[in-house]
């Protein structure tokens, strides 16, 4: 089942896959999560950021297992191949509905950041529309521009973060991270739940892995590296915020931007928040573009279309309208992420790839029983 890329062949290198895996999650996770993490797990929040990493690996394992069987197939392609056009198409539509429910929220998170920090008087719908403009055109191009932009932006963002955060080192106090392991498992698991749903976004790589020019095993490790980097950055950012603000972190939305408000170079270079907003929004465009691309690819394939591009503009318009109307305030977005997203996100991120994998394995077992032979190994499988 070829992907609906209009007959084009896309190629992504393993290191680009790692970068895309990083951007796909980190764009909003590092922005939104430190505050709820500290609110639930206090000074142990950075541990709670590392705890759910295995949850992010689960969809990856399922997707790579599927890739071994049918190399070059997207998640929607696997669903159609395993369950037939009707049931497989329905699974693809379910996945598309999930992505369509999450894309406006991703967009809204960035819009809230821009509206809150930089453009408070600009109508939010204008911010939303401007934020979707570039991702739409990037998504229409193909997957490759996203990979190239991520390759430029991530080192730039890392350098900017260091430039901004190192001057805040003077405000950090080690005592604020103690005691460790005093709260017990309850608060840690509670804090880890929304993080797990963010890490589970690796399921979207079901639309990137097929284009990776390496075997499933190597692709798995590249994507896992990206996921590990997200965990490390989230834990590090949360710890940094804790060392600077202590328990106040739980009351500061967009925590990283608050850190910039205590950073300054020799009383001369201050207000570094504008720099961080700029670089963050640029990286956010890649994330939004990836989500839009995955949604368009999936919906096109579920509907049996040969080309995904005609869907991008209507879906982008939908994301703007939904991003504007679904939530009355940024507080409502935060509440949704904390309380609904863990259940909503995880059930789809693990449920859909899991169902497709199960259908594939069962189909193979039935076929084996029918023919009495073992299925051949996939051509994309590594020698390792």
């Amino acid at each position, binding site marked *: 089942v070829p992907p609906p890329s209009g007959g084009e062949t896309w190629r992504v290198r393993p290191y680009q896959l790692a970068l895309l895996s990083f951007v796909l999650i980190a764009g909003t996770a590092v922005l939104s999560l430190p505050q709820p993490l500290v609110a639930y797990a206090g000074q142990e929040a950075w541990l709670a950021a590392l705890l759910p990493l295995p949850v992010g690996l689960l969809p990856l394992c399922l997707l790579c297992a599927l890739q071994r069987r049918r190399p070059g197939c997207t998640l929607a392609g696997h669903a159609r191949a395993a369950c037939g056009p009707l049931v497989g198409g329905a699974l693809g539509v379910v996945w598309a509905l999930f992505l369509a429910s999450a894309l406006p929220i991703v967009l809204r998170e960035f819009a809230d950041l821009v509206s809150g920090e930089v453009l408070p008087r600009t109508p939010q719908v204008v911010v939303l529309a401007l934020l979707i*403009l570039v991702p739409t055109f990037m998504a229409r191009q193909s997957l490759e521009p996203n990979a190239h932009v991520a390759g430029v932006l991530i080192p730039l963002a890392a350098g900017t973060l260091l430039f901004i955060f190192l001057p805040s080192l003077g405000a950090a106090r080690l*005592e604020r991270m103690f005691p460790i392991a005093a709260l017990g498992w309850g608060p840690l698991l509670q804090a880890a739940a929304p993080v797990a749903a963010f890490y589970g976004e690796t399921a979207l790589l079901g639309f990137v892995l097929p284009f990776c020019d390496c075997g499933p095993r190597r692709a798995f490790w590249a994507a896992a590296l990206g996921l590990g980097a997200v965990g490390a950055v989230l834990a590090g950012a949360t710890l940094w915020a804790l060392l600077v603000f202590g328990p106040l972190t739980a009351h500061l939305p967009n925590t990283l931007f608050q850190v910039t408000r*205590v950073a300054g170079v020799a009383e001369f270079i201050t*207000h570094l928040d504008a720099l961080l907003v700029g670089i963050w929004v640029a990286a956010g465009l890649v994330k939004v573009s990836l989500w839009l691309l995955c949604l368009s690819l999936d919906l096109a394939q579920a509907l049996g279309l040969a080309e995904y591009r005609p869907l991008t*503009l209507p879906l982008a318009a939908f994301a703007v309208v939904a991003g504007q109307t679904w939530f009355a305030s940024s507080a409502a977005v935060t509440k949704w992420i904390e309380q609904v997203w863990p259940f909503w996100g995880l059930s789809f991120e693990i449920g859909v790839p899991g169902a497709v994998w199960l259908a594939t394995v069962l189909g193979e077992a039935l076929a084996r029983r029918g023919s009495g032979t073992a299925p051949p190994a996939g051509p994309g499988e590594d020698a390792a």
Partner: protein
Amino acid sequence: VTPRPARLRWAALLLGLLALAGCWDREEVNDLQVVSGVAFDAAPGGGTQVTVSIVLPQNLPAAGSGGGVGNQSAPTAALLTAEGPTLGEAVERLAQMVPGRLFWGQTRVVIVGEGLARRGIEPVVDFFLRSRTTRLLTDMVVTPGSGAALLAEAPPLRVPATDVLFEHLRRGQDVRAFVYRVAESKLTASDAILLPRVRVVPEAGGDAGGSGQTGGASQAVRVGTFLFGGAGIFRHARLVGWLDERQEVGAMWVLGEWHPEQVVLQAPDGARLGVRIQRAGVRRSARRLPDGRVGVEFRVDVAAAVHEVDRGTPPLADPGYVQALSVALARGIRGDVADALGVLRRQDVDFLGIGRTLAAYQPAAWRRLRDRWPADLDQVPVLVEVRAQLHGTGNLGWLP
């Protein structure tokens, strides 16, 4: 029919027109009224009075003129005052008094008058944390009188009052309380913080300027009509008492954030020396003591050098004498800390963060104590260990 790529280009062009719809957030620098300092006072009837010092850029010396060109008699800052039933309304009335917008991003000092400080400074902290443009590293000070009066003072050298306050605080001779630290203190186990005290004294009166004296009566630092020294004790974000200059120095050694720049040392042979503190740090921990109780330990490490000999002819070439001076310095610091601890126990306000240290290093013990904290401060022994070392005696060994 228009070809598809052309239609797309048109669509992109039309979408791009959104950006021409007007810049809602346009802010011209000329329209900004830069607030360099602000004073909050209690107004009659439970309201709040806000006084801002606004920079007058047209009266500032031109760049490269060395400060000598310009209207020497013209003020470099203007004061505006407004009152309101809430802080927000007072600020809103202020905003209506100026052309353009009030810009809080360059506010260096927040002064709180005693009246408002006793009522509670939560609205002040809330205003600064919530605002988009403010800096969280803005210094807060408390004054026994009116904050507005402090802001209206005209210190020497035509420097605005806010600059004098900020430059003094920056030297680290008093405790510092940044806005976000005040907010954080409310969420910690101790729920207390110190704010530096600034007073206004007549030109002829008041204390003489000088350095903190360790182990003796410390002196306030005077700049023009400003008298720095001492600190206000805040609990639950309300002013509940004061520390004098020596008690403040004692607290600073233990808090470890800042330390006095210079102290005066009374040597065992009667000589008096000025000692410059080169490095000071504190390690705070809590541990179980041999008697089974949990105690808090402060280990203060100080490296210093002789800066001046004020009285006597001390044999500074004698290593034994220098060692004796180090011991005297350590003893003095211990005395300062004991003074601060005395106030802490008398007032039952944990402004040294003892509860916080217990919570960090002995969480099980803290769980037993926290419900009655700080009333149970007396039950927690505090050990103070000071290691002071004079590393240098300057370029002069002896002066007849």
